[in-house]
């Protein structure tokens, strides 16, 4: 093994780049040969190039739970992750299948006959008790039923290298800006390596997103519907991304105060006067969208917006109320929903999940709490997750008490030995755990963006990859088929 990869140890995990016997997988051979040979000075130079690229782009994210508003750059590892064409074909089909079904399920719940509930696929009480189930959204149609206009489905590879779904993010999944910026940076940092691989592009994302948003414009809109990005403002952790996406699409970035509802239509203030808005790509939570219907103290939203959506003069994307389908307890039913709506077997399986209101499953979980992962059902971003094998006795005791007090609010899952990927640590490569958040666009058609955001747990041995919890990222290269 060359240079940086000398003494690389897969540690008994599934390694993305190496076989069990330690030899490079065929699709990684060229990369390892090129990158592995970098002398220290060269490595240094490339790292500086990278840091410069990100500083120029101004990429930061805010970490909650630390000192207020800490802004950091999002660290991208120098070694990209590679996904061969045949593997991606399966993942892509699995994602399209899953998101299509989640859209049908949501449309069934909010604007249909609730067939999946009626036919006993999902218990009604589970829906009714989900924080994400938004009764205020009932009866509001969405063109094409495209309720998850942007979906971010987190997938991981287990100890055997099999891809499975960890969770669905159907409200306001973020991270796509890092995918695009990572790619931009990578073409500058490793131009030759990049050129040597047939990497499928991602830079059309802005156009694809705009197309998807325009395709869900209400019937009354013109042929060239006006789209805006609605942000809570500069203090939001993902503000950078909101501004980035508006720029990529060439549309206005607005805050609630820039929009008014008059006679059940939405307009934005511009320097040329009021201009009608047809589609709002909103990056603010349901609860803050409209103080008439939701939190009356919210100043982030637009009074009358929900009535306008109901009057079908404007489309809100992602649709209001998607949280019920990414509730982690509802997640457990997604494979059955796929079978129910399509008659097909799920292409991407779930992780084995225990439902804690079932007395037998709960007892089993409480017996093995130190071996399982416990997650609150409504949180995103890794908040509130307890990893049994790493938790202290006190943490486990608290977790047990919480489960016993409110079993509906938690799920338990087997610990997945996430696959590892060579990652630059000081002057050599070490294996670090990774996951993948691909992005799926649904407008008049479903489009899976090749790759997605590979997140890497930079701390040795850590399984937490969330950007908000000290993770980093990797550029993700989906390789084009040989014959294409």
């Amino acid at each position: 093994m060359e240079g940086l990869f000398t003494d690389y140890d897969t540690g008994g995990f599934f390694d993305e780049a190496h076989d069990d016997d330690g030899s490079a997988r065929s699709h990684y051979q060229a990369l390892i040969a090129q990158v592995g040979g970098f002398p220290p000075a060269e490595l240094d130079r490339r790292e500086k190039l990278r840091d410069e690229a990100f500083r120029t782009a101004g990429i930061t994210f805010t970490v909650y739970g630390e000192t207020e508003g800490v802004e950091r750059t999002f660290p991208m590892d120098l070694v990209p992750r590679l996904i061969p064409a045949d593997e991606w074909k399966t993942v892509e089909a699995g994602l399209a299948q899953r998101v299509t079904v989640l859209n049908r399920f949501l449309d069934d719940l909010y604007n249909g006959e609730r067939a999946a509930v009626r036919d006993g696929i999902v218990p009604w009480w589970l829906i009714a008790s989900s924080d994400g189930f938004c009764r205020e959204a009932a009866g509001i149609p969405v063109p094409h039923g495209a309720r998850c206009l942007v979906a971010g489905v987190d997938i991981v590879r287990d100890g055997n290298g099999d891809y499975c779904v960890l969770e669905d993010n159907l409200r306001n999944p973020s991270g796509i800006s890092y995918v695009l910026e990572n790619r931009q940076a990578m073409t500058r940092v490793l131009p030759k390596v990049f050129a040597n691989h047939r990497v499928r592009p991602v830079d059309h994302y802005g156009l694809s997103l705009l197309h998807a948003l325009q395709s869900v414009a209400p019937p009354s809109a013109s042929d060239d519907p006006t789209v805006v990005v609605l942000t809570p403002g500069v203090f939001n952790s993902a503000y950078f991304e909101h501004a980035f996406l508006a720029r990529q699409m060439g549309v206005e970035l607005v805050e609630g105060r820039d929009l008014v509802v008059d006679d059940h239509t939405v307009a934005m203030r511009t320097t040329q006067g009021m201009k009608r808005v047809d589609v709002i790509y909103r990056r603010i939570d349901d609860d803050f969208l409209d103080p008439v219907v939701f939190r009356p103290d919210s100043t982030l939203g637009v009074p009358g917006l929900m009535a306008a959506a109901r009057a079908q003069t404007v489309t809100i994307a992602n649709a209001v109320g998607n949280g019920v389908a990414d509730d982690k307890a509802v997640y457990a039913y997604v494979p059955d929903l796929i079978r129910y709506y399509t008659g097909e077997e799920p292409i991407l399986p779930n992780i084995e999940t225990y439902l804690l209101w079932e007395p037998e499953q709960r007892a089993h979980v409480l017996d093995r709490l130190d071996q399982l992962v416990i997650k609150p059902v409504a949180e995103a971003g890794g908040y509130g997750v307890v990893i049994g094998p790493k938790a202290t006795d006190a943490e486990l005791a608290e977790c047990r008490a919480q489960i016993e007090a409110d079993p509906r609010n938690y799920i338990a899952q087997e610990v997945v030995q996430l696959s590892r990927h060579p990652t630059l640590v000081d002057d050599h490569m070490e294996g670090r755990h990774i996951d993948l958040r691909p992005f799926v666009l649904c407008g008049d058609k479903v489009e899976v963006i090749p790759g997605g955001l590979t997140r890497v747990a930079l701390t040795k041995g850590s399984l937490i990859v969330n950007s908000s919890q000290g993770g980093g990222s990797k550029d993700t290269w989906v390789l084009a088929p040989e014959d294409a």
Partner: protein
Amino acid sequence: MRFDIRYRLAFEYRNVVRHSQNELRACPLTDDHQMLLSYRVASSPMARVHGFTDYWGTRVDAYGIREPHVAVEIVAESAVETRQRPLTVASPSMAQLADPEFTDIHAEFLAPTRHTERGERTVACAAEIRARGEIDVVSLVLDIHRRVHRSVTYESGSTDIGVTPDDVLRGGRGVCQDYAHLAVALCRELGVPARYVSGYFFAADDATGAAVVGDSAEVQTHAWFEAAIPGAGWLALDPTNALAVGERHVAIGRGRDYDDVPPIRGVYAGAAAATLDAGVEMRLLSTASSSPDQPLPLHQQVQQQQ
């Protein structure tokens, strides 16, 4: 009975308001017990009203006023026919409340909500009722109904939205929504699915307690509750008036609590304090009513005007 109902809300602001946006829930339901004959709503300053049916089946009128104004008047006029409800003859046992199918269907009406939270006093009060050892659900619900009526003294303006059932038990005073919320909270605590009903109540009586045709009454919107009886639908009771809900009650909507069926909800932009003058005028047009066993008479479809 047939009623004409005129619900008027008048907001006055101390300073100019640039924009107000509201949702009104004032339109009587059509269901097994009543039929809406006509409905129209108008605002001044004028606004285009967008009417829709919400998740709970309630007609909602959304409207916004985007011109400087210091007062808004909104008037919802309806005509409705009500009929007597059959007495509940079922006597399902308490055990039937635990049927998983029954609890699944009624999941939303079993969980505590903001206005029906299970405080200490409420839980203790439920325990006392439980200790009486009622063996059938109807008797239990009637117990709750009587207990709530006895525990609370009606006092107009004594409470605001936001008081809990515990507050009401402690203070012993309240208005109709407090009676309804307390009854709902006690039902749920005892495993009986229960829902909150917003509506109108014709309170005018003659000396004998009978309603007289042609009489009109100045009232306020009213609230009561309904409890799900296994195998026998919903039992509707009005603990404020210690009455079974009947022909003089006109329902607007049902939900988990007040928040699902507020008569008016909205926001306005402008640095101004508001006063609200609200009133309901109900006129009894006819005491004729169809028997519960016969279908309601057919009426010409009435265009709902906006």
